[in-house]
């Protein structure tokens, strides 16, 4: 028999000034199944909760309805209070008479009537609630990090130092990401390699980190605490155990005219190559698309010169399975390019800048390579077309960014500061050269960034011109950059030897496939979406999957590192528990009536339903029914509404409960009177 207590909250004046709480309590007391009803000024206060607890004990209540604010506000509070009084927390429900009643209606009589209705509906529901126990899920104490840029490296090191085994998957032959390509870093101008390389080495040597380079995540299944991951280790054609990284093969390889990705095409590399001198692991890989042996079956020079017999032309891709409890996504960024071919039809190239046909119109990362001591020019600023030192360099900001017509509306955030850096470093190397910057706004927000920018102007003499560049074309061996200085209102034309475009930061190409596989949300540009823009910035929309670095939005190194450490600590919190508790509001199957049509299985967005065989004693399969994995089920109830035989139901929102609510929505009498 139901023995329900109804507790009506005044919320100070918030409810009581509109709703007659005393009357609501009095009428509630006479509802079928209600044993006790009262009202109180602040139900959520300690004395208010004590009032509920002692009423549960005194009246031996087996159900509680708290008529107060939204359940989103205090359901947890009151369920906890009920639990402390020895009642199963799922026997407690809330009627929302504040957000949905007193705050939105001013007619006292009608609001009071509505509050009474809302209580009656909840009483009818609670009469049909039954005790539920939280679903307990075990946790695999390992983590996966996808992407080995600075964000992934930091997250992996933090978790590994926290005592967790980490699997780090990087798609390129080396970790390091874009930071490895940078020369010196703003705002302190410390050399990028000098601060990054020690961290890369630490990753390679860490006993808790299992590193897969030249590998990709092929498939992810499971759920928070229990992910199953398949990693594809792409065939490197080099036996990593035998190879000692001497590099002789890379020197002898006859196929040497392949654009070097690391130098962004400003130099060439061989078909067997180590991406850059500090690469981790420092062992080569064969680029099968350009290797003569793979193209013609001949050559094999590398195999001949290799002293350790490490070359393995027959090596196959390998699939390895890993189990982890948490995942950090750190797949970083790519640069928008101005060419005619774009990854999707939302983006457009820059015909007005020549669609990339002028060799001396380069992007920011290419300029980083020209600045870098290990770059194609040994750190000398020499332009790609003729190897001459450019005396007039034009830097253009916001190429692609904040440009609706080209398809990107956001600000790429880091460019203003790296342009100042580029101009400054150029002037240090070519003191008699001129650096011009076309900009829309200078947005150098960040610790000491604005001082940095001003230093570029005041000490190094960069010339800033406010306005977009409308056209770039070649004339007599020079590039003519046509723009406007909108501050002085005159058209400007600069004869440039080199133009550096600060192109927009975009996500990695085709990265949405990985995000779909992971089941995490991403925005219209394919940046990962965080669970809450303010309060949960490093969590993805899926429990147990965290995000770090530029895969989320354009970010500089300090921000990427901060976010990586935050994501790592979130993952460590998750993995520090022996088991996870989940809300038991999950679907359950009545096997006796299930007809095995498996509509539910197909409809389930969480993939929580599987086929189960019912066998007789002899082990013969009699029939198949649906089975719900409570640790995967997210409790949406879509399965219930597609079931033909009423054989699946959702705890907490059962058919019986919802029909009881519908039946009590309108007092029977008022219908008949109408």
């Amino acid at each position, binding site marked *: 028999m139901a023995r329900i207590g109804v507790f009506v909250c005044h919320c100070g004046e918030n409810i009581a000034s509109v709703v007659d709480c005393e009357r609501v309590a009095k009428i509630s007391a006479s509802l079928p199944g209600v044993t006790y009803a009262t009202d109180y000024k602040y139900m959520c206060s300690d004395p208010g909760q004590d009032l509920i607890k002692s009423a549960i004990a005194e009246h031996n209540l087996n159900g509680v309805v708290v008529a107060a604010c939204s*359940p989103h506000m205090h359901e947890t509070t009151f369920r906890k209070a009920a639990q402390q009084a020895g009642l199963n927390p799922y026997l407690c429900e809330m009627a929302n008479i504040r957000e949905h009643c007193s705050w939105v209606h001013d007619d006292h009589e009608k609001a009071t009537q509505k509050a009474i209705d809302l209580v009656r509906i909840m009483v009818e529901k609670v009469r049909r609630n039954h005790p539920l126990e939280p679903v307990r899920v075990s946790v695999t104490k390992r983590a996966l990090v996808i992407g080995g840029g600075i964000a992934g490296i930091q997250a992996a090191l933090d978790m590994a130092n926290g005592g967790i085994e980490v699997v780090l998957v990087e798609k390129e032959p080396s970790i390091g990401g874009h930071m490895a390509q940078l020369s010196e870093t703003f705002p302190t101008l410390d050399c990028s390699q000098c601060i990054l390389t020690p961290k890369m080495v630490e990753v390679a040597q860490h006993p808790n980190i299992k590193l897969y380079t030249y590998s990709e995540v092929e498939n992810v299944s499971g759920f928070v605490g229990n992910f199953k991951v398949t990693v594809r280790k792409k065939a490197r054609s080099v036996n990593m155990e035998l190879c000692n990284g001497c590099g002789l093969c890379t020197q002898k390889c006859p196929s040497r005219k392949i654009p070097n990705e690391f130098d962004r095409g400003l130099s060439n590399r061989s078909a067997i190559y180590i991406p850059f001198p500090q690469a981790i692991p420092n062992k080569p890989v064969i680029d099968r698309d350009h290797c003569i042996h793979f193209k013609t079956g001949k050559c094999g020079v590398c195999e001949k010169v290799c002293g350790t017999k490490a070359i393995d032309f027959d090596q196959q891709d390998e699939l390895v399975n890993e189990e982890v409890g948490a995942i950090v996504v750190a797949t970083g960024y790519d640069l928008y390019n101005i060419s005619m071919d774009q990854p999707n039809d939302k983006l457009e190239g820059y015909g007005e800048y020549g669609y990339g046909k002028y060799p001396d119109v380069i992007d920011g990362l290419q300029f980083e390579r020209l600045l870098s001591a290990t770059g194609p020019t040994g750190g000398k600023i020499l332009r790609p077309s003729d190897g001459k030192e450019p005396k007039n360099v034009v830097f253009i900001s916001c190429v692609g960014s904040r440009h609706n017509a080209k398809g990107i509306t956001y600000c790429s955030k880091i460019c203003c500061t790296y342009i100042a850096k580029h101009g400054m470093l150029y002037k240090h190397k070519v003191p008699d050269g001129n650096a011009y910057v076309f900009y829309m706004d200078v947005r150098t927000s960040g610790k000491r960034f604005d001082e940095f920018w001003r230093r570029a102007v005041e000490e190094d003499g960069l010339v800033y011109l406010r306005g977009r560049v409308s056209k770039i074309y070649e004339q007599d061996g020079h590039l003519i950059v046509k723009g406007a200085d909108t501050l002085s209102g005159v058209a400007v034309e600069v004869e440039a030897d080199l133009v550096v475009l600060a192109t927009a930061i975009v996500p990695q190409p085709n990265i949405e496939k990985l995000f779909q596989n992971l089941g995490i949300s991403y925005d219209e540009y394919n940046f990962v979406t965080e669970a809450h823009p303010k309060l949960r910035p490093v969590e993805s929309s899926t429990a147990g999957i965290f995000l770090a670095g530029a895969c989320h939005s354009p970010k500089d190194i300090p921000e990427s590192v901060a976010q990586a450490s935050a994501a790592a600590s979130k993952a460590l919190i998750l993995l520090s528990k022996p088991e996870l508790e989940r809300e038991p509001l999950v679907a359950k199957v009545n096997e006796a009536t299930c007809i095995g049509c498996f509509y539910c299985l197909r409809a389930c967005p969480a993939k929580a339903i599987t086929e189960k065989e019912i066998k007789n004693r002899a082990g013969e399969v009699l029939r198949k029914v649906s089975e719900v994995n409570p640790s995967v089920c997210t409790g949406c109830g879509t399965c219930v*509404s597609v079931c033909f035989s009423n054989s699946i139901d959702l705890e*907490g929102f059962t058919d019986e409960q919802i029909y009881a609510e519908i039946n009590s929505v*309108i007092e029977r009498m008022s219908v008949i009177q109408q």
Partner: protein
Amino acid sequence: MSEADQGFEPHIVAFICNWCTYAGADLAGTSRMQYQPNVRVIRIPCTGRMDPLFVLKAFERGADGVLISGCHPGDCHYGEGNYHARRKFAIFRKLLEFVGIDLARIQFSWISAAEGGKWVSVIEDFTNRVRALGPYRAYQEISL
């Protein structure tokens, strides 16, 4: 509407998902927006949980109008519950029309957690519309 129905106040039943529309209705509250008090909310986890029979049951029990609202397409907390709901209702509407149910008494909408104002305008418009239609006697008479 007959003379006798002057001063008629419709009963509106709203089935709304926990994550978007319920939170949107909460936001209308915290922003102290005002709307007519005719609506009674039944909270469901997701519009995917919505069984078309709930609508019929509500009419049978005296509702004059039924509102179903969830997250915008693409925003469902569970990914695709609202797509199932949308597909189901596209078919269900045809069936209802066929059996002679007045479709003007059913409203389907998407209201996000940030759209307190939209919740208010949907409730206002729908309440006014159903009030103008008068009590849904046709249905109630069969079922009583």
